[in-house]
């Protein structure tokens, strides 16, 4: 299965809540609806909070994978 094209990337390792979400949100604002953002998050608190907040804002999380103790998320920006 081929992976979708990524339009922007954000490495949020070491970034604390809620700044990791705020940065994700700001980055998503730069994108067009339907475009895909890759976000790398630490496990624990960040991964507990950021995906749920992204979901609450209506965006779609299309892929999640664990990479070297961190999580890699692909988020498709919602059409607003």
């Amino acid at each position: 299965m081929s992976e979708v094209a990524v339009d922007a990337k954000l490495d949020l390792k070491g970034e604390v809540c809620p700044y990791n979400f705020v940065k994700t949100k700001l980055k998503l604002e730069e994108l067009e609806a339907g475009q895909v953002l890759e976000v790398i998050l630490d496990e624990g608190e960040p991964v507990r909070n950021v995906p749920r907040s992204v979901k609450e804002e209506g965006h779609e999380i299309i892929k999640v994978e664990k990479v070297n103790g961190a999580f890699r998320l692909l988020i498709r920006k919602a059409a607003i």
Partner: protein
Amino acid sequence: MADYDVKDLKRVGFMKQKEKDLFSIRLRVVGGYVSADQLPKLAEISRKYGRGYIHLTTRQGIEIPFIHFNDFEKVRGELAEVGLSIGACGPRVRTVTACQGEICSHGLIAAQELALMVDGRFFGYDGLPHKFKIGITGCPNACIKPTENDLGIMGVVEKEFIEERCTYCGLCVDVCPVGAITIEGDKLSYDHDRCVKCGDCIFVCPMDAWVKKRAGCRIYVGGKMGKFPHLGHEAFDFVEGEDPVLRIIERTLEFYRERGEKGERFGDTIDRLGLDVYVEAVK
């Protein structure tokens, strides 16, 4: 001698200060909710009758110190103009505390609405052996500390797993606070007994493979702080609907009124008689 009965005043939330004829007035602030219209009135009353400040209590309440007993009726009247009233002291049900409930990203129940309902029905309930505190917290994060209340209510959620939606990404495994979920390859296992019903897996799942089945309340009893702290016991794991919750509170108060000894906190009554005796009596 002043013409007031300190015991009678305490009943309605006037607390005698060390200073002669001065009292701290405790307000009935349910769930910490104070409207923008009430705030300026509090400032005005504290300047006019007190010393220009209020005190926030540990149970989300407000007290206005340095009020002379001659001003009680005027203060009461001015508070009423903005829908505020006096709280409770002594051996009775105190103002109900609550978190912000559903508006919090972790909230599972409408804690504020439930607090208004419980407070409306039981605030001031009398004839008890000692004080009785009720706290309502929206989820197992327990910000309102239900196990520190004589009766604590906690929002919990029961869930369902829809296997065909799962991509085995492992997010739920990572967020589960008790390690109840494990994934091996394309197989997810879930330990129901270990689950604390917090719903973190539901909130985090990108595929909606974990879905909410029903929300309800877990009820703790017998908690208290003070000189002899004692955490509450879990009495009911899952109670669905407001009426059954209200019924349990009502029966609990009746049980405490009948079986508690004078001056005994509810946690001590339960320890003396046994949790099972209590649960059997109120369920």
